[in-house]
């Protein structure tokens, strides 16, 4: 009884402590952005502040006025060039011209080549390839590091003790999740016989999306980048799914697309283009679903925090902060749910592509 009370007291103290640390950092983050925007326009622009927080960046904000300046890597006609992104902005975070092999300047967040007057040189900028380690890329490295540590250590534990003994430590945390992906996602959709071949792929996308979703929910340093709310990231995943689905597709899958069995020939002609479009819309819907869900969550939390700055009073936080915490809780669910749904739909598409059909049944229906 006594111990329980001490425990709950400790929890309260720790949460208060965490709140005290995290609240100023959140406020600082927004306040810095507010100052920055206000200087330019003399007024607080909600849309600009929110979009600035969800888009990719060349520097990673730590606290107050401290941030990590990530390297800029450019490939031009004169080869590769690497420099710190610090050189692209002055002390007020305004873009300035950096003289390297060419004159570089940030125009709307993107590195471009400019001429002597500081105007955009379109012809030269076409030759420019930007391979910079941006905030999203750095955050991906963090999530890959976390995944490697967690998954390799639990894999090593299986190697050491075998699968017959009870799991220990991290291993017992990972085992139910991996079994969940196998028993709830892979086997019902692909089938027990073929699912083993696709398990590594499904587990990889599941854990990659899950880790990035959770990292995106942390408002300060190790997280804070909007990786899974970036459409390029979700497009890459969707392209991977597209390739796996279409490479593993069997004859009957393609037959069902181009020459639907059991239909009149005119209907077959009519269905073929629709089914062909369906091949491409499936991964596109995967891409937009993940991107929209995560981005919408970030925008929601940010606009609730922005309420404080719209009303210009600290008392607005009495409403804004509980709502932001509530939305944050829902986002935790969404982070898991979207990883699960992406994996489940990928498994479902693979299942549809590898399914063995019984043509006799179709023919029977057609004849009667």
């Amino acid at each position, binding site marked *: 009884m006594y111990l329980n009370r001490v425990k709950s007291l400790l929890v309260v103290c720790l949460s208060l402590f965490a709140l005290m640390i995290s609240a100023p950092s959140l406020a600082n983050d927004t306040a810095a952005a507010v100052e920055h925007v206000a200087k330019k326009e003399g007024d607080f622009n909600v849309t600009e502040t929110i979009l600035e927080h969800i888009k990719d960046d060349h520097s990673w904000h730590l606290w107050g006025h401290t941030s990590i300046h990530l390297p800029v890597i450019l490939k031009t006609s004169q080869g590769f060039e690497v420099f710190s992104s610090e050189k692209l902005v002055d002390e007020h975070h305004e873009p300035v011209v950096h003289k390297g092999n060419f004159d570089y300047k940030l125009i709307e967040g993107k590195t471009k080549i400019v001429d002597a007057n500081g105007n955009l040189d379109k012809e030269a900028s076409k030759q420019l390839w930007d391979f910079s380690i941006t905030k999203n890329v750095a955050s991906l490295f963090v999530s890959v590091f976390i995944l490697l540590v967690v998954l390799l250590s639990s894999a090593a534990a299986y190697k050491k003790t075998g699968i017959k003994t009870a799991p220990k430590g991290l291993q017992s945390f990972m085992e139910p999740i991996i079994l969940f992906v196998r028993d709830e996602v892979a086997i019902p959709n692909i089938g027990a016989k073929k699912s083993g071949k696709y398990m590594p792929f499904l587990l990889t996308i599941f854990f990659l999306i899950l880790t990035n979703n959770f990292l995106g929910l942390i408002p300060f340093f190790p997280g804070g980048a909007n990786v899974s709310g970036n459409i390029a990231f979700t497009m890459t995943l969707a392209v991977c799914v597209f390739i796996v689905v279409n490479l593993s597709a069997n004859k009957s899958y393609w037959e069902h697309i181009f020459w639907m069995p059991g239909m009149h020939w005119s209907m077959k002609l009519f269905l073929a283009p629709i089914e062909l479009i369906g091949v491409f819309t499936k991964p596109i*819907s995967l891409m*937009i*679903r993940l*991107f*929209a*869900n995560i*981005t919408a969550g970030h925008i929601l939390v940010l606009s609730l925090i922005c309420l404080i700055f719209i009303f210009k009073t600290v008392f607005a936080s009495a409403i804004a902060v509980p709502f932001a915490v509530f939305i944050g809780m829902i986002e935790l*669910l969404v982070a898991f*749910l979207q990883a699960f*749904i992406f994996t489940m739909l990928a498994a479902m598409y693979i299942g549809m592509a590898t399914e063995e059909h019984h043509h006799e049944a179709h023919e029977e229906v057609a004849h009667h």
Partner: protein
Amino acid sequence: MVVGSVAAIGAGLAAIGAGIGIGQIGKGAVEGIARQPEAANEIRSNMIVAAAFVEAVALFAVVVALLGNG
């Protein structure tokens, strides 16, 4: 005077559609659980997945509205 954009109306319409959809899913799930309380866990997880699908469609509309706004 009313100031805004057509995109905002679009986002609102999408929210109505999603609201109806999620409402139907919730109704179906609660009725199912009332009839078969022992299947509550399975119904609940299926309900959440279906709700996420409906929500995604609404978010597609929100993305289009945002793009139209920008």
